[in-house]
């Protein structure tokens, strides 16, 4: 029997595509060459939304977008009219639900049982101690970028 220690990029991409298309429709996400160092300067005003998974698998899933994407996502998910501007708390809620669903579906790729945390959303990088990045998707949504990173708990043998 094979025990997965981390989700594959292929599977994470499939989850993100499904969630994005179902909730947001329209323009698909397109993989692009990595052009952003998470430790460097973020291109634009940053929003991070994250959930953790704990149990048989320990992981951190983070969706990172700029302010324009954050508001566009919120507008689409809440069904706001073009002229309506999403309030700050609406953006927090929409991004939180987006990462909640992405994280829940990534959790289902791994051996259980495990538990999904409530989402955390911040206008700053979200990181967790003891977690190492194991998968990162660099995606284009129209002219904007979307990043999804998955981290797995460092069990000491990770190089």
């Amino acid at each position, binding site marked *: 029997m094979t025990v997965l220690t981390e989700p594959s990029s292929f599977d994470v991409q499939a989850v993100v595509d499904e969630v994005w298309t179902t909730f947001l429709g329209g323009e698909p996400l397109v993989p692009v060459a990595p052009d952003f160092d998470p430790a460097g300067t973020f291109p634009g005003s940053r929003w991070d939304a994250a959930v953790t998974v704990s149990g048989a698998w320990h992981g951190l899933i983070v969706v990172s977008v700029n302010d324009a994407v954050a508001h566009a996502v*919120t507008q689409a*998910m809440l069904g706001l009219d073009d002229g309506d501007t999403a309030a700050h708390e609406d953006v927090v*809620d929409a991004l939180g639900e987006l990462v*909640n669903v992405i994280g*829940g579906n990534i*959790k289902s790729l791994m051996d*259980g049982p495990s538990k999904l945390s409530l989402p955390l959303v911040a206008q700053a990088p979200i990181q967790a101690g003891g977690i190492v990045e194991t998968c990162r998707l660099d995606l284009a949504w129209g002219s904007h970028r979307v990043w999804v990173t998955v981290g797995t708990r460092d069990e000491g043998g990770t190089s």
Partner: protein
Amino acid sequence: MHALIIDDSRTMRSILRRIVVDLGFDVTEAGNGQEALTALEDGLEPDLCLIDWNMPLMDGYTFVTRVRADPRWRNITLMMVTTESEHGQIVRALAAGAHEYVIKPFTADAIVEKLELLGLAAQEVPA
């Protein structure tokens, strides 16, 4: 008919609200299981509850067990709408009394189809 939507995400409540309003439901929203239980205690009589699993204060599973333990609410149809997709969790929820289980993300058609099967939405007759 009346639907009670129970989810800590206002965004998700809004998505579900649009779907069931299109089917002719009146809607009440609650941000967690405790808030929903209080609404029932206060006399709300929904035909349908759409219930998230992971919520603060009282989760959806606990809400289902509490509703099913009270004969006053035996006629309410309970549908879980959640990211929880582990087989064991699905079995637990259905065994506790949930009638249906929908995993997020979902399309509007998926919700409508489940409600048709439950007799809470009119089935489309093929032309």
